[in-house]
């Protein structure tokens, strides 16, 4: 009845954005008749619109395929997809933990990138066998031999006989399938032992509730099994188990070595935590699978409805997104400038952008987003430790003993000609140089330690522009370090605007204050009166700009035939004003709160 575990292969594909992961997955599904070519929506694994537009995969999912090998046997392949961005590092590590092997796809015209490298290390750390594959060999600029050597030098795995393929044309993809059978070990595990299933992703379905995507390490799960989360102790009755082939297909049971989903009428994905181990309630496993972590928000920002009347709509939208995204956190907050809204926590900047974009696009909300902040540790003179994710809540300088800020270890891979400008960028952003390795004669791997708050605004954009798009970047949180930080405030027409406050390093405060004040001057439209724009640290003004007053706001002509048109024009102008936030006496465009803080480093 159960599939012979020796014929199962569980694997992921590791690739840099645009190196061809999704295309290769599509070809594999076609070759194994998992999906007919004509039914295939382009790049099936990327199901959300935003993912597709950005060419990246955000939520992992998995597909079961059956492969008829030349040895005459039929193998079950479970391809587990991994998110391709640094914000989702933990999710990647759990997806990889569900596999025995990984296919490393490298673009023959590009070579290895920083993120790829980080994920390969994760795979190696998880004990996976890595099968390198050289993609895009059909392109004239392909250099498969150079890239193979790079894989050997940088990663230290043999790549001499790596399949050279074109996922686009399908060339040699069959060889990849055959090599997976040979390279990736079969899963081990005892189907009769107490259940141990690793949740590597989850998804909310309106009818089935929260679904857990799992890899079964030991035991068997079927409808009716009472399961228990080993992280939370919560128990549920399984209503359905199934696989993705490539859409949901219920099966009788999932057993050791297999990959699939479990439905158990769970109300929200917040109760199905990635990395958690599911076991049987009646016969629990002695210990959970290793590696579970509570996902912590790294970046916070305030999200407000552009029109205060839509607060409830925003809350409802966040509630809905939260159903499917356990890593999103939010709580009510009030801003003097913006009214009622939410302090939202994200895994990283990309995660933040995706959520705000989904709120605007899927829920049709106009939002005001404040500048992102990281989480600071503040130690007060009276011995308390405060955790601050909103600059407004920072106590007076006089009460603070010292502060700490989050620090990341950053890896930057770049053609060597851009090393100078990138090092300058890192220095400008308070980076500490760790080391530099030559991967090849003209490519280097730079390591820096950087404060997280320096890379959350526009570091990535600057890196890309300084390297003409060639440098790639990866980072991981490495802890907290003491730092001389101050709160930089902005005053519009003499009134402080809390939504613009930001915490910055003391040495950067003057430059930042000047740059932001200048930018505010440009984005705030001229109004009836002159508006002083000031940057301040405490009560000290460090920069001042002026938005000049509108001189003439009057239509030169208005005669008998102009009345209807004139009234319409006034209505239109009033609508335009509605898209502005009134901060004290000053109207500020909704997008200014975020955009002004993007100052190129």
């Amino acid at each position: 009845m159960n599939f012979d575990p020796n014929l199962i292969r569980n694997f992921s594909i590791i690739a840099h954005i645009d190196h061809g992961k999704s295309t290769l997955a599509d070809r594999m599904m076609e070759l194994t008749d998992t999906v007919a070519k004509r039914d295939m929506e382009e790049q099936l694994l990327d199901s959300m619109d935003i993912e597709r537009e950005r060419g990246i995969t955000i939520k992992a999912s998995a597909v079961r395929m059956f492969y008829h090998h030349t040895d005459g046997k039929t193998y079950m392949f479970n391809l587990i997809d991994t998110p391709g961005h640094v914000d989702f590092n933990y999710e990647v590590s759990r997806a990889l933990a569900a596999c025995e092997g990984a296919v490393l796809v490298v673009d023959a015209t590009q070579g290895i990138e920083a993120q790829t490298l980080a994920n390969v290390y994760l795979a190696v750390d998880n004990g996976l066998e890595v099968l390198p594959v050289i993609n895009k060999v059909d392109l004239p600029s392909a250099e498969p031999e150079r890239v193979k050597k790079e894989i050997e030098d940088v990663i230290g795995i043999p790549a001499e006989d790596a399949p050279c393929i074109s996922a686009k044309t399908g060339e040699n993809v069959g060889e990849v399938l055959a090599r997976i059978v040979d390279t990736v070990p079969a899963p081990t595990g005892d189907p009769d032992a107490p259940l141990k299933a690793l949740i590597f992703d989850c998804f909310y379905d309106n009818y089935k509730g929260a679904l857990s995507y799992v890899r079964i390490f030991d035991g068997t799960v079927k409808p009716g099994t009472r399961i228990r989360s080993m992280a939370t102790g919560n128990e549920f009755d399984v209503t359905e188990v199934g696989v993705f082939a490539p859409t949901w297909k219920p099966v009788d049971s999932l057993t050791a070595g297999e990959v699939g989903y479990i439905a158990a009428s769970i109300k929200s994905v917040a109760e199905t935590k990635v990395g958690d181990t599911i076991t049987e309630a009646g016969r629990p496993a002695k210990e959970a699978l290793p590696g579970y972590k509570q996902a912590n928000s790294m970046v916070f920002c305030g999200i407000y409805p552009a029109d205060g009347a839509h607060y409830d709509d925003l809350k409802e939208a966040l509630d809905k997104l939260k159903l499917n995204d356990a890593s999103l956190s939010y709580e009510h907050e009030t801003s003097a400038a913006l009214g009622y809204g939410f302090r939202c926590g994200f895994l990283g900047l990309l995660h933040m952008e995706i959520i705000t974009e989904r709120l605007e696009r899927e829920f049709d909300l106009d939002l005001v987003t404040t500048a992102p902040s990281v989480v600071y540790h503040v130690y007060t003179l009276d011995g308390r430790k405060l955790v601050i994710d909103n600059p407004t809540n920072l106590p007076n300088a006089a009460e603070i003993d010292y502060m700490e800020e989050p620090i990341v270890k950053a890896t930057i891979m770049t053609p060597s000609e851009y090393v100078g400008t990138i090092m300058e960028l890192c220095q400008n952003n308070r980076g500490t140089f760790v080391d530099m390795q030559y991967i090849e004669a003209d490519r280097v791997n730079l390591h820096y330690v950087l404060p997280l708050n320096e890379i959350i605004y526009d570091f990535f954009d600057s890196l890309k522009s300084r390297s003409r798009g060639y440098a790639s970047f990866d980072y991981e949180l490495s802890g907290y370090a003491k730092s001389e930080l101050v709160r930089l405030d902005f005053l519009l027409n003499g009134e402080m605007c809390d939504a613009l406050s930001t915490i910055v390093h003391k040495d950067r405060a003057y430059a930042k204050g000047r740059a932001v004040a200048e930018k505010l001057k440009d984005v705030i439209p001229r109004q009836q009166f002159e508006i002083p724009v000031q940057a301040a640290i405490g009560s000290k003004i460090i920069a001042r700009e002026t938005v000049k007053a509108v001189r003439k706001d009057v239509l030169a002509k208005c005669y008998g035939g102009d009345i209807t048109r004139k009234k319409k024009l006034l209505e239109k102008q009033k609508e335009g004003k509605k898209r502005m936030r009134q901060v004290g006496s000053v109207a500020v465009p909704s997008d200014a709160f975020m955009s002004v803080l993007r100052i190129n480093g």
Partner: protein
Amino acid sequence: MIGVYVHIPYCLKKCRYCDFCSVPIDETAGRYRSAVLKEIALSKARYPNARVKTVFFGGGTPTALPAEDLCAILDAIRAAFPVEPDAEISVECNPKTIGFEGLRRLCSAGFNRLSIGLQATQNDLLKRIGRVHIYEEFLATYSAARDAGFANINIDLMHGLPGQTEADYLDAIRTVAALAPAHISAYALILEEGTPLYDDVTQGRETLPDPDATADMEDAGMALLEQLGYHRYEVSNFAKPGYECRHNLIYWHNEPYLGLGVAAHSSMVEDGFRVRFSNENSIPAYLKKLEKGKLPRAERILINTFEQMFESVMLGLRLVKGIDRKAFFDRFGCDVIETYKEAYDKNARFDYWDRTDPAFLRLTPAGMDHLDSVLRDFRERRLIDFFR
């Protein structure tokens, strides 16, 4: 008492900034005169009791039609409605479209005010905005008009033109004032969508002075006009004492007027209700309706009291004198300041009200510079607020 406006939609050539209803003169011009005559006859039946205190022929360029056509239309108006003996009867003209003979004819027919479109005195600026005449041709028209007997003449000037400097504009004012016309209109250029100039500017082929430079021109121009004896009585209009345009004052006082001709707008009292309607805005559609014996109306809306109040504010605040609070009260039964208290108070904070005469709601010069912003505040008041 009403004002009558007659729209003549023909020009020698359309200027680059113009978005009025006008076309180069063509074969429809012959039928146009009889269509307007028919419209007058139909209007007489519709408004048998109307009495006329001003008539204004505008365009386009009315003088693109032969003077006899204009005289025939004026005669028909007189035949249809009682026209006050001292009525102001204006006609717009552009240089190069009419000479002494024609002007003489208009004068004898009863036209007593002439408005000449000049815009600038520098020929390079005139060319750049697509005017068909040069300054010297204007001068010829002006002296011909004087000789023909026109004593009440307006000259149109513009500022904020492409390539124009403050010195150019002030020069134009001095030059024109030296001719001693009774009235000068001084408009800021309005860049209207759909005009060739708009396309040129938005596509970078032409540049306008920046808004601050235009504002400087305007302020310097106003001061100079005042100094030369032309007092400002409306946002863009200046006159020697007693020569304010009575026809245009009808609009700014929100009084009724009847518009004749293609694309003309009217605001009349019908069956006790104030209505606004517009005529067909294409010449063929206009001609067709009248040739079938129908009034050429395109749209007609009822203006409720609440909208009338706002319109009275919108138009009345354009006048330097402001809104006569008693007249407003007599018409609507409420005080304008009390009715729009919030807007009034808000703008009082900017010192936009001139309170020297409590009988008037009047803007200061700074308030007039921000009239549209003031009006947006008045517009916040909704009909429903009256029921609270």
